[in-house]
Each structure stands twice: as C-alpha cells, then as structure tokens.
C-alpha cells in the first residue's frame, strides 16, 4: 500500500465527524499556514516558476499535516473522505494562503481523470505524487491545426516494436512548463472515424524528443505552452485506458473540466480567486480614481455589471441544485460556462467604459486604472478557453434543448479520408 499519513480518522474507532475534522483543520491552519485577506489574495502569477515552487511547498505542508487530497481514495494517497469534509476544509482555509493553482488542471482534471481511467500503477504513482506536492500534472490536448474540434487531433503515435513513437505538436497547454506529466491525446489508427482511432498517453515531460516553448499572449502573460514531439518514445505503461479508446478518456477530462470551472469539483482544495487578475473589476475604485463617483451614468453602468456578477453566482447555485434533482441534464454546466464568459465580457467592457482615457494612457504613472485597458486586450480569453462560447451554445441547443446536431462532414468517415484544409 502507498504511504499514507496518519490522520485522526484512523486513530479512534469512530470516524471523525465533519465538525471535528473542521475544528482540527482550524487549529492546524492557524499554526502552519499563512493568513491572508480573502478579498485581497496574494498575487500568484501562473507564468512564473516561483509560483509553482511556492504552491508545491504548501502542498507538501498540507500533506504532512494530513489535509491533502481530502476526497481522493486512501490507497492513492488521499484521505478517502466525502465532499462534506472538503467543503468544511474550504470554509476553514478561506483566510489562509493555499496552493490554488494546483487545483486546475492538476488535481481537478488530470488526477480526477487518472482516477477514473488510469491503470492501477498510474493511479498509485501519479495521484499520490501530486497529493504529496512532488509532481504537477497538465493536459496536452489542443493542436495548432484546430481548436474546438478536439477529436480531430493529428499528433501521431506509431507502433514500433514494443514502443510508441510520437510525432506532432500540441498547444495552449495550461502551465505545462511547470508540470511533470501530461495527458496527451494522439492518433493511433487513421483508418477509422476520428473518435475511434485515438489513444491517451501519460507523458513524462522531461523525456527526450519534446521541445517546449512558451506562448506570449497580448497582455504579456506567458502561462500557456506549446510542445513539439519529434520521435518521442513511450512504452505501453504510458497508455491511459484502452488503445484507440482515447476519446473516452478525453471525454472524462472534459467532464471534469466543466465541473472544475463551475466550481463543482470535490478534488479542488480551497476556493478563492487565484490572483488579482481573476478578481472582478472594482468599479467604485475606478470611479473614484477618475473622479466620477457621483456620475449617474457611471453608477448605472457599474450597477448593471454588478447585477450580472451576482446573478452568475445565483445561476451556479441554481444549476448545481437542478442537476442534482434532475430538473436540468448534467450538460447544464455549460449554462454556467457561457454565462461566465458573457459576464466577463460585460465586466471588462464596463471597466474600460468607466476608466475612459485612464484605461489607455497611464495618467497617474502607477498603472492602477491603466490595468483595465491591458486586461481589455485579452477580453475574449474567457470566451475561448476550454471550448469557445459558440461550442457552448451548440451544447445548450443540442444537449439541453434537444435540437438537431450540427452537420459534421467527418462523421463516420475514416480519418485519413477527412478533408483537413491546407497543411
């Protein structure tokens, strides 16, 4: 059995109650973790290695204290407790610095998918290493040749003896530079329709044959990466799930991603905003800095955005409850995804409108209101990442409202006969 920490749950005969667990967490957090103001959380820049070093250091501390991997099974290094314990811990750790950047994608998407689909060895090795704060996991899904059409990937894995040889490229991999292993989708059979010839691999990112490069975004952010594979060699032990069964694994990733983004994953620990750029705009501060606090026009603009911000929270609650009662189908999480994207666009636009020239010229020299303009440049990221808003509208129309599916010219066609545009 994998090494597990001794928790109070093992000590007595009676399992520890949620209240007792929370009380123990409260004491431990106060003695071991750094207090923060949850309304002004510390700035964690995902693009910087130091953020990841800090996160894994905290994760190791949480593990040593017996508060890591609360909802992961004990045999894979977790505590094997149910959601109520994680929620109680979330409430307790709200005012402490937490390794929030490990939640997505490492714990909530990658580890969760390995737990569902991985081999026993993969589960024992990778999940427990992540929980111990020794490894970070990432996803290698999107490719330069296509965004929304995930099942159309053309990175190839060819059988050579007892090895798989990987050639191709991946892009938009969140925080891959900081990760140790990545879940990579590749094509293993070109003679069958696109969903049927895919295989998921768990790739050690320090292997020879991988070249990684940072992508620089318009706002200067360098969190995302692209990877080039030139004859990367993998063994059968790297296959997650079945050979040519990769779409089932990818579907689990997408499922876990939707839950994580909606704030509904039991594998997330801590729920605060990761950094200041995730915090919604402070309209009162922008209005004050630009001398417009008492402008009715500004109050109306800002009030509208505040209304939509609150309704987003209410929608998350309503959709979660409705999925649980069956009033809405499981795909209804997409409603949250789309509302979040639309609200982000509204918030970014509202901030820019109120900021006026101070959003485009650094009038005071301290960058305060000017950040609003910089953020505007990447306004669409929320409407593109994790599937575009247009894909979300298709899902709502087809899976929630039951309308006919979009025509797919590649449906049922062997992949090597599918038109792929100019190469």
């Amino acid at each position, binding site marked *: 059995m994998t090494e597990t920490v001794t928790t109070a749950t093992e000590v007595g005969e009676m399992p520890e109650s949620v209240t007792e667990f929370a009380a123990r967490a409260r004491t431990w957090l106060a003695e071991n973790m750094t207090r923060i103001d949850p*309304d002004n959380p510390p700035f964690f820049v995902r693009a910087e290695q130091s953020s990841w070093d800090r996160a894994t250091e905290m994760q190791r501390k949480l593990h040593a204290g017996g508060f890591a991997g609360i909802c992961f099974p004990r045999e894979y290094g977790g505590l094997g407790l149910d959601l109520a314990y994680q929620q109680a811990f979330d409430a307790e750790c709200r005012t402490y610095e937490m390794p929030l950047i490990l939640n997505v994608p490492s714990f909530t998407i990658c580890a969760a998918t390995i737990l569902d689909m991985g081999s026993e060895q993969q589960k024992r090795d990778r999940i427990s290493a992540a929980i111990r704060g020794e490894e970070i996991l990432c996803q290698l899904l999107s490719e330069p040749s296509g965004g929304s059409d995930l099942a159309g990937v053309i990175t190839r894995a060819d059988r050579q003896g007892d090895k798989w040889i990987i050639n191709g490229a991946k892009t938009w991999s969140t925080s891959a530079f900081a990760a140790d292993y990545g879940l990579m989708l590749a094509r293993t059979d070109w003679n069958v329709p696109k969903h049927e010839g895919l295989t998921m691999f768990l790739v050690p990112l320090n292997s020879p044959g991988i070249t990684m490069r940072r992508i620089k975004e318009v706002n200067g952010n360098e969190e995302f990466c692209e990877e080039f594979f030139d004859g990367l060699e993998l063994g059968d032990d790297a296959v997650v799930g079945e050979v040519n069964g990769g779409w089932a694994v990818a579907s689990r990733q997408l499922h876990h991603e939707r839950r994580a983004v909606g704030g509904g994953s039991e594998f997330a620990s801590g729920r605060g905003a990761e950094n200041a750029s995730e915090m919604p705009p402070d*309209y*009162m501060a922008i209005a004050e800095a630009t001398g417009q606090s008492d402008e*009715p026009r500004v*109050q*109306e*603009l*800002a*009030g*509208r955005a*505040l*209304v*939509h911000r*609150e*309704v*987003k929270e*209410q*929608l998350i*609650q*309503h*959709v979660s*409850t*409705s999925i649980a*009662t069956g*009033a*809405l189908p499981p795909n*209804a999480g997409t*409603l949250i995804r*789309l*509302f979040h994207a639309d609200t982000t666009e509204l918030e970014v636009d509202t901030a820019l409108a109120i900021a006026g020239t101070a959003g485009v010229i650094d009038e005071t020299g301290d960058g305060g209101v000017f950040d609003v303009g910089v953020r505007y440049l990447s306004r669409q990221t929320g409407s593109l990442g994790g599937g575009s808003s*247009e894909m*979300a*509208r*298709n899902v*709502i*129309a*087809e899976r*929630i*409202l039951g*309308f*006919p599916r*979009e025509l797919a010219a590649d449906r049922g066609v062997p992949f090597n006969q599918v038109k792929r545009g100019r190469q």
Partner: protein
Amino acid sequence: MTDVANPEQMLFASTTQAFLDKEAPLTRVRDLHAADESYDPGWWQRAAELGWASLLVPEELGGGSVSGDGVADLALVAEQVGRSVAPGPLHPVSVVLAGLVEAPEGHGDTIEALVAGELVASWAVYEPGRPFDPTASATTATQTASGYRIDGVKDRVEAGDRAGALLVTANCDGTLRQFVVPADTAGVTVTPQRSLDMVKIYARVQFDGVEIGSDAVVGSAEQTPAIIERQRQVALILQCAELVGILDTVLGFTTQWLTDRHSFGRPLSSYQALKHRFANDKMWFEAARATTAGAVAAVAGRSPDAPKLVSIAKAYVAERTPVILQDCVQLHGGIGVTWEHDLHLFLRRAALYRAMFGSPEDHYRTVYELSRKQEDVHA
C-alpha cells in the same frame, strides 16, 4: 418559488394551475379585454377561497400558508399567474397585505376582508410625473381634531378603479406615513388609466380634503420606512416570479414551434443562427429563475441582504425578459406580430412590469449604491 418545492407546495401549485387553466385561460384574457373589463370580482373571490390572499397573513389574523413559508407560496402563485398572464388583483392586494400585517392594530377588519376576497385594496404610491420613489410624497396628511386630512394626487394605482380601499403614502409634518383610505370617502376622485396590458387597469386618484379617522394610519412613524421597504420587496418579487412564469410558457411554445416549423426542408431548430439565439434565451431564463429564487428566499427569511437581492432580481429579470420575448417574436416570424398570436399578451405584461416599481436602469443604480454602502461598512 424555490428550486425544491415540498409536497404541500407541489399540491398547492397543481391546484392553482388547475384553477387557472379552467378559469383564466388566454381566451378569457382576450374576452375580458374585448369587454373592456379587468377581472370578474366573483372570480377573484374564488381565487381568494383557494388561499391566494391569505399567504402573507399570519394565522392569528385569519391567514395562513401552505408550506409555512407564505412568501414562497405567494411567489409560486405569481409564477402560475404569469403562465397565462391571468387577470386579477393579486399584486395590489398582496402588497397592501404585506404592509398591513407588519402593523395590524386597528386594521383587522380590512385584513379579514382582503383575505376573504371581499375587498380589494391597492398601494397608492406613485405621483403624477414622478418616478417610483416610495420614500417621498408630495401628497400631505394634516392632523385634524378627529384624525387626518389627505390632500394630493396619486396615479398608476393598479386596479384603482375597482379598489375599495387605498393604502396611501403621505407626508405628515415632514414624516412619511401610510393611511388606509376607503375609496368611497368624500373627496376621493378616481380616473382610470389604461395600460399596455390586456386586462390591467390603473387609476389616477385625487384626494381633495379627504377626512379620515386617526385609526386609518398604519404603524408608527418609526415603523413606516421598514413597512414600506417590505411592500417594495413584495411588489418586486411578485413581478419577477410572474415574469419567470411568462418566460417558461413562451420558451416552451417557442421550442415547440422551432421543432415543428420547417423551412427549406429542415426544421428551424436545425439552423445554427437560430440555435445560438435560443441557447442564449434559455441561459437567460435559467438565470432569471435563479435570481428570482434568491430574492424570494431573502424576502421570506427577512435577510439583511433582501433590499439588494430584490433589486438585483428586478434589474436582471426585467432587463432580460423583454429581450427574450422579442427574440421569440423574431423566431416566430410574421405570425409573432399578429393580434391572433398569443405572444403579444405576454409581451404586454412584461413591458409593463419592466417599467413599474423601478426600471432595470433605476435598480442598477440602487444596486451600485447598496454595494457602495456595504463596502463602506467593510472598510
């Protein structure tokens, strides 16, 4: 109107629905409109017998609710009313009762008559040419030897042409007070005002030296702001719940239309441009339901956040509903702008509610102000 209704509420909902289906279908709304009538008083009395007017009234005052949460039950009725944009004074009667039960002393008979459906009352709060501001009044109440004398003009009083009593806000020596004024008191002149809605008739009410007893006043001067805020909250959640009912119905028959109607040999529901438009409508509808549920729960629980949450709900629901309904008109094509099609019945009430008791734009500013105050408290 919470997400998870209990069995009593579900039974109440189905009884309410059956009553409305039988006694207030859309054809009835059209007939009333053709006859220039707002509602049949006998019908309202039967509705009151089902308990519609008792939900906000405690048992010791002759009321009672199905689930023990009268506000939620009332929102449920309002949602059902929205499904067929039914006639009747549910809105004005509920708002008046919401106020009276906060300070029932001396108003027991009025409450009892309202609960029984024998009396209809309405909140006279708007004044000509002024926006909705329940905290101010140009109408005055002057103390006399035997009580008060009311002078001034109110308008946009719902069912004012039928109401037997009016709950009037008035300035009494610099303090805002509320008075129950029987509509047949000497000096009260009622002039009907038509509305965009098929069956809702409003009224301008003039008070010329209207003498009323000292027992007409509702609550103390200190209680009055909180009572008025409670009335405002009930007025707003009723609007939101009714709008949710309207949306549910219209989206339901529009879904059916998109599925059944074919153009160029394929159903309308297969066109991506229409799918995307309707996907937005569906999302906004679920959000409207969510924020309405949040406001109803806050008002029911008398949460300190209730003033802000009802303004958020009103702002959002009243902003989105007309947009969604006009989308549905567009998706229906030409038939959507005909008198024959029912869409305009829903659109009429939605447009009316968008404007009444504060527009979304008014509520945006309220939410901003309340958020700013909250921030000051935290600072």
